[in-house]
């Protein structure tokens, strides 16, 4: 359309195509601003979404959980102590002592290495366990539950740097099968030996042992540890000297598996550790802590033989695991185990505390997992592993004897095992870098990988704790609700009243003007200043009142006035100007016609305000209240000044309680260096946002109900 204007002098208005261009230009300006506003909106949404994503990302992900104490160690220690503290129990690291002790006593029972029994089959009788005979075949096939592999340990460095050690280990591996048979042990599997030889070759970089005449003549190879392995090592040592012409010394000592590990890794005065069990995490940790990388060589199998004297005529050919349990930790007399057995005391001959045989016996007979344990054992483990003071505290909460098995189990985990998250990863890391995380967790001693939701019901229900995995926000949620409630109760009635006065009653005097200016300025005062005010006025000056002492109901520990009441009043003052300003806006927006209609009917001012102005302004007032309460709910700085508790585990019981709030809690967690606290801070932020959303949604719902006008 290119219409030319009629009757105007040319050039007054743009005409024709010129005008169309002009229109297009004007539209382009409009499009530009529309795009600008759209981008602003998108940017806002993106920022908000990023915030949420970031917080959520921190709230889920893999963690490396490390037990402070290895559960197996706790269990072993517990049962070992029980076994060792039974009356009429003889302990020795020397299996010979045990074997001979049992042999001559009809009421005795004991257990030790298979070899020692093999040497004394004329005086000793081995018992079948769960119906399985302790024969070489049953042990090798794994049917006999007390069969276990035997090892020698050395270190990577020794194997590389000490040719005589390398030569000895190599010789050991080549002759292990023969020697085991000679010594009455069950011969090691061909495969295990081959594995050992491969490890040897990889470590030393050699294919065959160095010739014996190249070995230093003055060197001493010292071996110590398990008395079960000792005879094998001793025989190998003799043959090593005899067959290779090794000019140095080979000394073989006992002491128990654990002692052997210690000497290899900590004292470093032996080169070979004899072991009747594999190293476990704590042992490996000890070694690595001393910069020793242990190497294990499987050199045979031992079956622990449970034996009685040939003189014993009442025991059947075998025992069940249950009977075995009773014999070594409960029963005083044989008749306690089985009424048909004689009422005679049980004499026990068991290996000593450092013995790998005892450890192995305990783990096989008594279990090595906490959830297998009976209630009374869990209870005993709890009581023996925590301090007397802590036990008193727990009993004060609720006597532990009265708690359920599950609760006791949880207590053992929390108080004794103390699983600790030592490292954690975000959700995106967990999704895309799983392999790296797995590798990292493997690096951490004693740690396992778990997927963890940091935001759990447990987290919401638990009180604060110094351990991030146990910490929760219950106290903080209650604190926030209390403080916000008090702020609400203070600010809303006062604020609406003040706004009504200023809008409806104020005569515009000088004083009113000063008040009005003040309120507008107060809304812009930094919140920390309100904190200072609260500290000076509510905490210090009115401390007697805000701590409740004036009413005789305060708790002496909160006598300093750092209470919910002080905090609530402070936040109340903080949001008062906001409430007033918003309420004034709302009241001002009430149409004059509505007021005039009421006055025209002969209404007084109060009737007009009460029946028409306030109801009409209510939605607007509520909008202000929602904003203000949200502000109070999220406020942190003034509370820190007023004195939020840094660590509190007791829920607030009223306005005179100590308190913490969600934002304050988040602030404290965020300011800690450990990553785990960042995770729970993120979880708490999610809770805070959700609560804010809930509070606001409720308020908006109420507002919409109120504002459903005619």
């Amino acid at each position, binding site marked *: 359309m290119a219409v030319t204007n009629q009757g105007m002098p040319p050039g007054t208005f743009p005409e024709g195509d010129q005008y169309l261009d002009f229109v297009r230009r004007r539209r382009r300006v409009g499009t530009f601003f529309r795009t600008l506003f759209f981008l602003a909106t998108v940017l806002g949404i993106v920022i908000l979404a990023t915030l949420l994503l970031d917080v959520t990302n921190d709230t889920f992900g893999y963690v490396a959980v490390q037990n402070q104490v290895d559960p197996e160690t706790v269990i072993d220690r517990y049962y070992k102590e029980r076994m060792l503290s039974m009356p009429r129990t003889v302990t020795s690291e020397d299996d010979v002592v045990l074997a001979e002790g049992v042999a001559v006593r009809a009421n005795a029972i004991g257990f030790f290495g298979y070899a020692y029994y093999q040497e004394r089959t004329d005086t000793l009788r081995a018992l079948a366990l769960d119906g399985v005979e302790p024969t070489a075949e049953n042990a090798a096939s794994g049917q006999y539950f007390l069969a276990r592999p035997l090892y020698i340990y050395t270190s990577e460095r020794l194997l590389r740097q000490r040719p005589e050690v390398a030569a000895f280990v190599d010789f050991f591996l080549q002759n292990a099968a023969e020697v085991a048979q000679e010594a009455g042990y069950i011969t090691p599997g061909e495969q295990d030996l081959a594995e050992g030889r491969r490890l040897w070759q990889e470590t030393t970089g050699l294919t065959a042992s160095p010739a014996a005449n190249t070995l230093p003549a003055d060197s001493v190879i010292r071996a110590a540890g398990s008395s079960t392995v000792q005879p094998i090592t001793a025989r190998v040592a003799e043959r090593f000297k005899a067959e290779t012409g090794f000019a140095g010394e080979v000394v073989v000592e006992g002491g128990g598996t654990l002692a052997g590990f210690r000497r290899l890794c900590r004292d470093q005065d032996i080169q070979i550790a004899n072991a009747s069990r594999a190293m476990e995490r704590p042992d490996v940790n000890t070694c690595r802590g001393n910069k020793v990388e242990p190497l294990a060589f499987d050199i045979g199998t031992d079956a622990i033989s449970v034996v009685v004297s040939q003189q014993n005529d009442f025991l059947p050919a075998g025992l069940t695991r249950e009977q075995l349990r009773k014999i070594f930790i409960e029963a005083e007399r044989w008749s306690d185990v089985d009424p048909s057995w004689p009422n005679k005391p049980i004499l026990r001959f068991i290996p000593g505390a450092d013995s790998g045989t005892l450890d192995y016996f305990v783990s096989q007979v008594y279990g090595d997992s906490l959830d297998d344990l009976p209630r009374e054992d869990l209870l005993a483990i709890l009581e023996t592993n925590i301090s007397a003071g802590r036990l008193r505290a727990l009993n004060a909460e609720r006597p532990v004897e009265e708690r359920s098995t599950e609760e006791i189990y949880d207590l053992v985990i929390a108080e004794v095992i103390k699983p600790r998250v030592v490292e954690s990863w975000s959700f995106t890391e967990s999704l895309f870098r799983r392999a790296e995380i797995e590798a990292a967790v493997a690096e951490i001693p004693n740690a396992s990988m778990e997927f963890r939701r940091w935001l759990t019901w447990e987290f919401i229900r638990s009180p604060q704790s110094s351990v991030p995995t146990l910490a929760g926000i219950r106290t903080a949620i209650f604190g926030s609700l209390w403080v916000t409630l008090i702020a609400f109760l203070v600010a809303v009635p006062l604020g609406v009243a003040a706004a009504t006065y200023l809008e409806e009653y104020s005569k515009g005097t000088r004083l009113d003007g000063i008040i009005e200016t003040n309120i507008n300025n107060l809304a812009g005062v930094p919140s920390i200043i309100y904190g200072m005010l609260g500290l000076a006025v509510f905490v210090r000056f009115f401390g007697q009142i805000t701590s409740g002492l004036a009413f005789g109901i305060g708790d002496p520990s909160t006598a300093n006035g750092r209470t919910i009441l002080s905090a609530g009043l402070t936040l109340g003052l903080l949001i008062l100007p906001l409430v007033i300003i918003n309420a004034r806006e709302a009241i001002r927006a009430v149409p004059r016609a509505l007021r005039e209609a009421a006055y*025209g*009917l002969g209404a007084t001012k109060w009737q007009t305000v009460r029946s028409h102005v306030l109801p009409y302004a209510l939605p607007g007032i509520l909008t202000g209240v929602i904003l203000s309460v949200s502000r109070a709910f999220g406020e942190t700085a003034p509370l820190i000044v007023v004195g939020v508790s840094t660590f509190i585990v007791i829920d607030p019981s009223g306005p005179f309680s100590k308190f913490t709030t969600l934002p304050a809690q988040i602030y404290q967690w965020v300011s800690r260096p450990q990553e785990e606290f960042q995770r729970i801070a993120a979880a708490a932020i999610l809770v805070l946002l959700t609560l804010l959303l809930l509070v606001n949604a409720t308020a908006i719902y109420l507002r919409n109900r109120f504002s459903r006008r005619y």
Partner: protein
Amino acid sequence: MAANPSPNGASADSKYAIEARNLNVFYGGFHAVKDINLKIERQKITALIGPSGCGKSTVLRAFNRMNDLIPVARTEGEVLFHGKNIYDPDVDAVEVRRRVGMVFQKPNPFPKSIYENIAWGARINGFKGNMDDLVEEALRGAALWDEVKDKLKESGYSLSGGQQQRLCIARAIAVKPEIILMDEPASALDPIATLRIEELMKDLVKNYTIIIVTHNMQQAARVSDYTAFFTVTPERTGYLEEFGPTKEIFTNPKSKITEDYITGRFG
């Protein structure tokens, strides 16, 4: 004050319902209307006409002290109601407004139900009788009953503009005033609704004294018994130029300005 004969000698049964004597109204320093002397006859419709800004609405609002609501407004002179100056310090504006009701330019029902719109005024004024009857009576008085009797619980805003204005009239008469002030009551309405309001006014005047401000001269000519013509001085101060029976003002105005205005030569 209302029922007692005043010491000035004017009594309740005097011919005049309300009277302005030397009425001056100022908005801050601005002299809005000056020296108004006006006697409003009982049970008649008096129309206040004049060009924009001539102060006719100000005068109307002076009759029930609505100007008091404007903080800067100041009134001098007297408005006699039952022989008593309503601006005397011992007179409460609330009572005046109850006796001198008002209907505004734009329909302004309360954001409440139709029933409540009428009942509220009665209730705050201490009405003790049967509220349902009063509501019905007021609605019938405002010729609205038949249209709303089935939806009394509905919002006053659900009605059409004309109905809303009649609801406002019903609301005003529910508190039993003597005088009803109407400030351009039909200016926001279509011609048919306007006609109904005019018919209603003729009906109401049997029981009430009505003062109406209007811009519509045909309306003034159609409905009013008396007409007051206001105009302004060069300083924009309003004053009463001429007052008399409507017929005379429209057919035989004494003043040249009135004639010019009536005939459409200015305004």
